[in-house]
């Protein structure tokens, strides 16, 4: 059987000491660092109720695209809600200028931001009740905590990086189209979403398909951005997307938040890796 465990008694003692240090000191140091980063991230989302009260500040974003200037928009973001929107659309055919804005009384909640913010605060909450006074006793405990935190952070990040894929009828039915004054013309659809660090506005121009049209009608599925030629059925009509305009603007604080997410995820994973180094020496312990 010879020497099954490579570690001698002395080695084991050293390892044990090192592991204790890891659990008692290093873990807390990492957790504190994590908390700091996440608090910084959550500040970016301007959590209501935390710290300074009063109306959350408004930010204006001018949306544009490098290519054409057919659509111009100014969106006003207040926390996780769009409070104002001004969209100018130059119709490609007749160069007629269309202008529409949000109704005064309405706000549009950007669910992606809200969800990301909530996930971050969940992560902070998970960390908050494990302060220095709390003693971790097993590595598994740390791993479980890290797994839970990472789960929240990954979701937070994924909410921002993966916008919802909507079908055209879903966009048509969404409340966003009813937010505008004057009301949107029936041949226009509007969608707003977050993609990574960018606030995106898409405007779809539609034209009706004649019932006797020879075109093979195939309704399009869900997509973040539909391309011209996508078809759908709305009410009794069959419609086709003729033009798509996408304009976007970088939200600087979302960029920060995403960086914070990535950094903290890596911190978590590194802590997990440190713990599992020891677990492999100690697999006999209830871990």
């Amino acid at each position: 059987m010879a020497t099954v465990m490579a570690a001698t008694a002395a080695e084991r003692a050293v390892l044990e000491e090192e592991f204790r240090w890891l659990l008692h000191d290093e873990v807390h140091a990492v957790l504190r660092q994590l908390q700091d980063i996440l608090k910084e991230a959550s500040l970016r989302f301007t959590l209501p109720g935390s710290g300074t009260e009063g109306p959350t500040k408004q930010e204006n974003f001018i949306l544009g695209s490098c290519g054409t200037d057919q659509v111009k928009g100014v969106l006003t973001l207040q926390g996780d809600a769009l409070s104002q929107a001004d969209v100018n659309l130059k119709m490609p055919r007749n160069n007629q200028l269309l202008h529409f804005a949000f109704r005064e009384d309405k706000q549009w909640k950007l669910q992606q931001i809200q969800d990301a913010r909530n996930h971050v605060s969940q992560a902070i909450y998970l960390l908050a009740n494990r302060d220095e006074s709390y003693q971790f006793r097993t590595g598994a405990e740390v791993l479980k905590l890290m797994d839970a935190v990472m789960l929240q952070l990954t979701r937070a990040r994924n909410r921002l990086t993966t916008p919802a894929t909507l079908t055209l009828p879903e966009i048509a039915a969404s409340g966003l189209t009813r937010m505008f004054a004057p009301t949107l013309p029936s041949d226009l659809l509007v969608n707003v979403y977050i993609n990574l660090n960018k606030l995106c506005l898409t405007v779809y121009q539609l034209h009706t398909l004649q019932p006797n049209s020879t075109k093979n009608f195939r309704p399009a599925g869900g997509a973040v951005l539909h391309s011209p030629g996508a078809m759908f059925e709305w009410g009794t009509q069959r419609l086709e997307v003729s033009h798509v305009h996408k304009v976007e603007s970088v939200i600087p604080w979302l960029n920060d938040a995403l960086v914070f997410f990535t950094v903290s995820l890596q911190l978590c994973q590194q802590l997990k890796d440190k713990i599992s180094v020891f677990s492999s020496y100690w697999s006999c312990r209830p871990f």
Partner: protein
Amino acid sequence: MLTHSSILATEIPWIKELHGLQPMGLQDSFTMRSSLQAVALWGKKAPPHSITAIMITDDQQMIVTGSQEGQLCLWNLSSELKISAKELLFGHSASVMCLARARDFSKQPFVVSAAENGEMCVWNVTNGQCVEKAILPYRHTAICYYHCSARMTEGWLLCCGEYQDVLIIDAKSLVIIHTFVSSQSPDWINCICIVHSMTIQEDSLLAVSVAGELKVWDLSSSINSIQEKQDVYEKESKFLDSLNCRAIRFCTYTERLLLVVFSKCWKVYDYCDFSLLWTEVSGSGQFFAGGEVLAAHRIIIWTEDGHSYIYQLLNRWAQMETAYKTFSGLSKSIYPADGTLLKETIYPHLLCSTSVQENKSLPFVMGYINERKEPFYKILFSGEVSGRITLWHIPDVPVSKFDGSPREIPITTTWTLQDNFDKHSTTSQTISDYFSGFKDENETVVVTSSEYVPSLDKLICGCEDGTIFITQALNAAKAGLLEGGSLLKGSLPQKVLKGHHHSVTSLLYPHGLSSKLDQSWLVSGDQDSWVILWNIFTEEILHKFFLQAGLVTSLLMSPENFKLRSYQVICCVCSDHSVALLHLEGRRCLLSARKHLFPVRMIKWHPVENFLVVGCADDSVYIWEIETGTLERHETGERAKIILNCCDDSQLPKPESILPVASETHKHKSVEQRSSSLSQFGPIPCPGLQVESSCKVADAKSFSGPFNVLLVKTKWSNIGFHILLFDLESLLELLLPTPIRDVDPSNSFYCSEILRRAKSTVEKTTLTLKRNKTVCGPLSTEVHAKPVGESPAQGDNTIKLSEENDGVKKQKKIKSFKKMHPKQSRKVDANLTIDTAKLLLSCLLPWGVDKELDNLCIKHLNILKLQGPVSLGLAANEDHFSLMLPGWDLYNTEMKKDYSKVNLFSRKVLDLSDKYTSTFPNHSGMPKGLENNSDSLQESNTIVYLLSKLFLVNKLVNMPLELAYGMDSAFKIESVHNKMKSPGNDILNISSFYSYLRNGKSESHLPEADVSLLKLISCWRDQSVQVTEAIQAVLLAEVQKHMKTLRKTPVNSEPESVAKNGDYEMMQMLPKIEWAKEPELQCTTDTFPPQTPVSSVKHDSNSNSANFQDTEDMPDRCVLEESESPGKRKHHLWIEKVCSCKLC
């Protein structure tokens, strides 16, 4: 359309995709095998159960806990408040978030559980079965059951969690009905509570959002609008000015106060106008976790670290008025019942507190259940991450000490899973206990990995100390479980492979996955990054690979159609997130991919371009070129998802594909494919990280033989235990069929898949056809008509024909497959099968009910008695199974007194067994032939008979309810019959169905006994008798009946029927019975089946048939060839093979 299909997925076993992606499409074949019998070998250490949710059932007889590992545990709670763990339920692949009642508990004891990844299951907690399951893209943190009997048929589950507003889910079907939406600041909801107000006769839903907004929805008055899918907005909304709400409770005693617990404070509001009455802030470092109203003006608050505090809410004014009434609550007179707005001023007075000695492992999940009727208690309960449950019995009138300081309420009970294991250690054996030849007696071997090789019946276990044991699995199991089996211990043939110096973390038997690889190869990986290729027959090391990476977490093999220079490669995933590819033939390492920052979650293969696609835990994707070892691409986010997703649906390689281009062109398409309706509501769960299977239950899917051994390991733990799985259906298949049918489970994945599919589609026809063919080779065409006619109830000729053709076709397929692997069949030798059957019977039989019966069983069935009660389990389907825990049988103290060493599943078994016996007609016992033959032929015959009975019971009890309702009994039986696609049931039902179907549905011909029997079993199902209970009851009754006849008739009764060589008539009528004896032939003569003396066979089947059918109007049939010499018989088999091929 290019790469779309050309990447092959290999999933790492412990990961299961949310979308039910199966690596090789095994699922359909598996669902067919409805339930597997399992026996758990728990070992000394309990599996970890970090409690994340806990509840006590309304009848206060059971505690249900959910764990971070994903299991549910059922604990018996005695009337003296003693806890004992009973059963562990496997079904979730992620940690359990919440538990709730899912029905009116007095009618149906159902509990719903919701897991972290969106899985929801409804469990019947009395029998541990999963009633309904669903995967929704929502993560619930709290669920409330609501049922308004006047206006709803089915109850609702009101759910909140990591999505906006409140979801309404149908409690029965788990389908989303609608949502309660909020018009003002919609946000995630933290807590909900249902308020039944007696005074205004209206139910309301109270909810607090994460931002601290209290919302009120009308519940009872909006039922209709909800059912008509109209939007229902909140009636009131108020900002509470605190974050992290943990509980909201309404005081039903005063109908006035509202308790809201936040993590840093708790508040009391006046329900009439939501005015704040009191705020109590927590001490430093203390987080409140919940609370409940105990009585009028008495509340209990508990914390994350397991403390609780009971407060009396005092009214200042009232106290001044009547100072002596301080602790008796406030009289009604002070609070006008008419609800006039008398501003209350309250302040809390701490009466009592509870605490736990060691509050080290956070967090505690606690709850409080109130007394309902007299014998019930007010119980405060808590569950810890360490798996400990603690109960406090809260007195009806908690009072403080005389000096006014708070009184400490002592702990009433505390219990852990490990306590169960310690108390009943004798019942918890492990397979590894019997690797003791090289060990001291007191030193136990910790098995860190294991692999079962069905074709060799070898169990390969990698141990913590680096040794690898190879042993005969069945014998090891016997040695562990059965009395006298321990004698086998010393003589167990085992091999020890020594080569690793650290614990063996992963094993792979390549031949099990691809038959082209050498049968002697075994690959093992250890903690120190060594991978060793062994020859298991010679026990020598063929090659040692050193990966210079972390612990080898898993070994995978490339799929069959992925070939690198016509060889398959082994993929090693290491704990340092690296992946290495090994080439076994060439003994070299092909690729070492080390750039991954996060754990590897998925490996996919691109056969054409020789790409290895690695999916990581952070949802990024790395594409490696295998030939050059270079990183071709690295993608994150949406594009990574597309790359991984686009290979899901097909595995057919298309030569012209180029990965980057394809992913580009298909971006649009795959995006479209995603279900879009979900995105309207809450967040779409991200399959990548969220799906972390907590244990390797998924492994059960690859199980195809009649017997398997699995090592179940839970997350965050190295404690594993083995479970033995028995598949009644395939056991019977193996015991009954011809040599041709005998499929080697170790066949290549692909081929056996074809075979299985073929089987499942027209299994019955194929089976019967084949059976007939082999029995009476040349005459097969004649026999066809009969079995086919027997299966469909309609008896329509055209259908018969088509089915027949179909069957022939399928058979051809199987045959051609057989040709490809002519040597592979007959690997599972008959002895092994019959031994498996015996072990199963040993485990199922309630020993000790009747000593004499035990002895008779040991003597006549040649099975061994159990050492102690075994932990039986039931694998209901691919990933839901329940396992009894050690000591499950001893919670009932009176049962302990009655029987020692009994394996009785529950008291009910005896009653059920008696009922079952009473349905036997007086005259008929067991087949008479079985009485006077005590040789092994008869023994195995009996075993087959018993197993087939069990199989029928199993099927009947498991049958979905819809099938059972709305049919008259005859039809019911019929449909059941048709549903069952196994030869087993044919034997059972011969008497009833044969005559029944052929006599043109005239019910009068049905033997009454059988109908009543089937009725009885169907009735059991309706009474939610557990499958195991039913099986055990039937087994007991059958064995009793059988053994009774043995007792009556002495063994000397002359073998009169032996001479009846030519009793053809009977046999033709029962071709199946012929089949029953086939395995016996194999068993009795180890060398060559057909050499068995024909006479004994004759006798046997004759007696069976005599008993089973009514001979009135049997049409005359072809004459069987049984009387021919063995040599000729063999010849026929051969002819038959050829024939069938020519025919088709």
